[in-house]
């Protein structure tokens, strides 16, 4: 066990939150605090650092229970506004995935496809309270005789609606460029030929897992901001990889940790869950996530003071190397450079653009800060932390 000069527990911090005495700052504000007073003093002063991210996050979706009909149906096939949902769960349970495209969409047969509507938009329509056409088909059983069901519903008509995203809040992500001679359309957005632009997608110093690089305080049961409501970390996300290549500060320089998150969709709002149409690629869902990080010791103070210039990612060519599955980065760049609007690769100035909204990420960190200061949000102590590595 390491010896720390400052030692706090979740319980102690939660007591302070309940008494309205907890000192909370955002991950941006924490940079200055640690710079001015050092990590030990900062750890004494600050109890919680809030983070935020708002980005298109594939691997998102919602479990919906449509309630039993009369006569009953075993809804094997389900559509919401003509977007197929997976019905092979139970009689009236289904899962609407964010990247499912509306039936009859021309997809990329008219290239690049526009992908106007899909699962992500259904989720946005649900949380907006909009009317949705629900359609279900069953094969008929003795206990579930109905074969067809159709009804216009809103989220209020659903018995349950649970957002469950198997992989969100990626700890770092590639920066994408295109070395070919034609424009390409990727999940990282439009990439113009000969490296005319570079797209990236994290909120850098505000992003949750950059502020707790070894997942010391985040795990199963961590209470989070999710889509405007309070949700939880349910499990390490799919593709969670703690063994990624890390810098001296412990921050991964490529895609690493991920989170599976869960929350009550009925409490969420369209401000923090928005459908995305990505030209030539498909549909997805913008998800807003914020995670509070308890400053249990000076090491956590140091981790949460990480800034853009010390966070790096890899630049990949999405015209050749990436689709072929060859992982050969072209360059390594910092988030400070990415967020400046231009980076330099092989002597060439390249314009950068984010897919992730820093504006919204900052709003989330501030909302979470208000919630905690106001005693409305209590930290959830993980029952089990995420798989990690030793320093």
């Amino acid at each position, binding site marked *: 066990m390491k010896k720390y000069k400052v030692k706090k527990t979740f319980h102690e911090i939660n007591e302070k939150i309940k008494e309205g005495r907890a000192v909370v700052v955002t991950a941006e504000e924490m940079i200055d605090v640690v710079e001015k007073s050092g990590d030990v003093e900062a750890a004494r002063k600050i109890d919680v650092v809030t983070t935020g991210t708002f*980005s298109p996050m594939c691997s998102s979706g919602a479990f919906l229970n449509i309630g039993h009909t009369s006569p009953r149906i075993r809804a094997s096939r389900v559509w919401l506004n003509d977007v197929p949902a997976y019905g092979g769960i139970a009689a009236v349970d289904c899962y609407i995935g964010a990247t499912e495209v509306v039936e009859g969409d021309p997809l990329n047969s008219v290239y690049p496809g526009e992908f106007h509507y899909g699962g992500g938009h259904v989720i946005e329509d649900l949380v907006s309270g909009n009317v949705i056409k629900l359609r279900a088909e069953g094969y008929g059983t003795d206990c579930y005789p109905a074969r067809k069901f159709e009804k216009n519903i809103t989220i209020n008509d659903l018995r349950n609606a649970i957002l469950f995203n198997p992989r969100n809040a990626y700890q770092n992500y590639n920066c994408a460029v295109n070395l070919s001679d034609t424009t390409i359309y990727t999940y990282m957005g*439009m990439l113009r030929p000969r490296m005319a632009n570079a*797209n990236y997608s994290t909120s850098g110093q505000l992003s949750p897992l950059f502020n707790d690089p070894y997942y010391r305080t985040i795990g199963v049961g961590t209470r989070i901001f999710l889509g405007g409501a309070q949700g939880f970390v349910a499990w390490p996300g799919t593709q969670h990889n703690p063994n990624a290549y890390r810098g001296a500060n412990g921050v991964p320089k490529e895609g690493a940790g991920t989170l599976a998150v869960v929350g009550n969709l009925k409490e969420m709002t369209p401000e923090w869950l928005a*459908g*995305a149409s990505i030209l030539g690629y498909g549909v997805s869902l913008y998800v807003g996530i914020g995670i509070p990080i308890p400053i249990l010791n000076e090491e956590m103070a140091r981790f949460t003071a990480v800034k853009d210039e010390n966070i790096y990612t890899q630049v990949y060519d999405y015209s050749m190397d990436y689709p072929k599955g060859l992982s050969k980065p072209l360059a390594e760049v910092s988030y400070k450079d990415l967020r400046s609007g231009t980076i330099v690769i092989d002597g060439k100035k390249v314009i950068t*653009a984010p897919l992730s909204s820093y504006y919204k990420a900052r709003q989330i960190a501030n909302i979470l800060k208000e919630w905690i200061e106001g005693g409305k949000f209590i930290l959830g102590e993980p029952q089990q932390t995420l798989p990690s590595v030793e320093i």
Partner: protein
Amino acid sequence: MYSKKIVIRYTPDIVQQPIICQLVKQYDLVFNILKARIFPRREGVIVLELNGLKENFDNGINFLKKMGLQVEPLSKSVSQNIDKCVHCGACTAFCPTGALSFEKQTQKVLFDPEKCNGCEICVSACPVRAMEINLL
């Protein structure tokens, strides 16, 4: 000198007539065609940047209107839907005129319609379809 970007809409009956050249001949205006299209039913749309004396500009616009064309500033045809925009900034790398940019302090995406040339690339680049352009 006065400079403004305008959208001119033609009806099928006058789409064949030489009209824009009169802006040069009669009104001493310099034009730069940013976009020109004729649609299947022969109605047309032209996006122009016009430069000249303010008086000549006003007279030129009146002439166009008298010829039966619909004229309005380009800024009226392009807008950023504030309710939809999530301020990600995906559009900013594509906008060729700098009409879409980040506000440094707040990190909000701002749209300056006066700088826009109506190229529409932002419409394709925006994942939430917040940029609305109506050039028809």
